[in-house]
């Protein structure tokens, strides 16, 4: 296996981008990453693009081919593949790109992720997102996607004493970070009261405990470390890329206060990278709901099981905390264009490790981690990156 580096990143602004189509989003993120890496179309060996439900959001499948066309690379006949794993589509696309380069099959690979979620109206977006859950045995009976995370939240609160306020503190922190990120969907601060007074979606989760519906795309360019030096001095090495899966349905899992796939992926990633949780300087985790971030920091070993709420309250994960989490604003404030999220997390960590994160820069960050989850935990992807 070869060592793999990220030599370029790019992403669009995240938000309700009515003026931009899926194609324009893909083109914008891809072009930014290609220019950032300083590569030419002729250098590209393959493309992987994460998209959760392009078929239902814009009625368009086969978006690998579409991505190649919008990039103007069809004459090179580059293999372009769409990757799907619900909200972890982007993370799995990264993992596929990593495998392709590490194996020696391809040298330069473009990984992308995109979702255009605001071209559908009414409750349709929520309905499409519910397809990440088990249609026959969860959604059929009236369980919504926030509903499944609400079951996790109530369970965690009951068994570990996590409070509604601690959940709200995740949203407050991430909105603060989002206010420092020019690409974030929500660039404004909120208070604990704002969260607790927002409408209830699925008790105990309020509207401001939930990540939004977002349009956006992100991309990253991968290359073997020895070739990467030809293109850039700002080499970010992928020390670990691990995907793990579990049951589709939440009720069939072995635990309800944890995502066993994420625990498994994290353990293997730490082994692969030869680092410990305490070595991580900055992390982007999958906070699709506030409870998800609390469970994530436990699953990643930053804190003991059950201590995630308390740790959040004590500021462990704040921008100036011991282990800043979701410096970008996370899914909550930066926005969550599902297929793009895993690649957008990589963008943030690369910026942090390059020292380009401006007002939200974590000083001296050299090792960062991303944690991307599909559905209620059916897929989890963990990447560990290091500036070399």
């Amino acid at each position, binding site marked *: 296996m070869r060592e793999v580096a990220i030599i370029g990143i790019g992403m669009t602004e995240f938000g309700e981008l009515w003026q931009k189509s899926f194609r324009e989003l893909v083109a914008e993120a891809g072009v930014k990453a290609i220019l950032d890496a300083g590569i030419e179309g002729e250098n590209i060996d393959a493309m992987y693009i994460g998209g959760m439900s392009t078929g239902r959001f814009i009625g368009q499948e086969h978006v690998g081919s579409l991505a190649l066309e919008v990039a103007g690379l069809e004459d090179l006949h580059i293999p372009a593949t769409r990757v799907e794993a619900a909200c972890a589509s982007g993370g799995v696309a990264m993992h596929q790109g990593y495998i392709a380069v590490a194996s020696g099959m391809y040298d330069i690979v473009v990984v992308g992720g995109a979702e255009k979620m605001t071209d559908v109206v*009414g*409750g*349709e977006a*929520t*309905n499409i997102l*519910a397809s990440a859950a088990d249609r*026959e*045995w*969860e*959604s*059929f*009976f*009236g*369980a*919504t996607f*926030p*509903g499944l995370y*609400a*079951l*996790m*939240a*109530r*369970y965690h609160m*009951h068994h570990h004493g996590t409070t509604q306020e601690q959940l709200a503190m995740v949203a407050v922190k991430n909105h603060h970070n989002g206010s420092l990120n020019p690409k974030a969907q929500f660039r404004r601060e909120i208070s604990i009261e704002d969260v607790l007074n927002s*409408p*209830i*979606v*699925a*008790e*105990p*989760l309020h509207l401001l405990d939930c990540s939004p519906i977002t349009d956006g795309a992100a991309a990253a360019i991968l290359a073997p470390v020895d070739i990467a030096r030809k293109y850039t001095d700002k080499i970010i090495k992928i020390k670990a890329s691990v995907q793990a899966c579990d049951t589709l*349905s*939440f*009720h*069939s899992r072995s635990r*309800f206060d944890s995502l066993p796939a994420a625990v498994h992926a994290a353990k293997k990633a730490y082994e692969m990278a030869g680092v410990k949780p305490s070595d991580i300087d900055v992390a982007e985790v999958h906070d699709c709901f506030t409870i998800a971030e609390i469970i994530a920091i436990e699953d990643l070993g930053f804190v003991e099981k059950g201590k995630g709420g308390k740790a959040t309250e004590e500021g462990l994960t704040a921008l100036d905390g011991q282990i800043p989490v979701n410096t970008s604003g996370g899914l909550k404030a930066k926005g969550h264009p599902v297929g793009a999220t895993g690649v957008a997390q990589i963008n943030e960590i690369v910026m942090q490790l390059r020292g380009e994160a401006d007002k939200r820069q974590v000083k001296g960050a050299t090792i960062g981690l991303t944690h991307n989850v599909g559905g209620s935990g059916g897929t989890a992807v963990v990447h560990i990156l290091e500036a070399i």
Partner: protein
Amino acid sequence: MGVARYWREIPARYNLIGKKCEICGKVYFPPRTICPKCRRKSIGKMQDYKLSGKGTVESYTIIYTPPPEFEGKAPYAIALIKMEEGCYLTGQIVDCELDEIHIGMKVEACFRRIQEDGKRGAIYYGYKFRKAES
């Protein structure tokens, strides 16, 4: 949805028929083709098994923002229920005040209308749960 998609799940949804692994004796609901403990040894050895319908609430939520098929039904309760056979499932809790629901509550299955496919489409039935008699 096509009627066949609904029809083939009727035994499980109407009568809580799951599967029991003949090798290890573990009961699965929703039904599974392969026992994840015994794997290949369980192939062809998964027998139909009717659950008692009795269980305990392990977690619950009140849905205020429902999906389109449940428009007008909110607020309603969804629970993670541990059945007495040891398997878990997801279902609605009905026939009680929402604030009566709690973790540890004993429940039993009942047969109810779940949703309908628009005004003229099929009506889908299945299990919901209510407070257990005893």
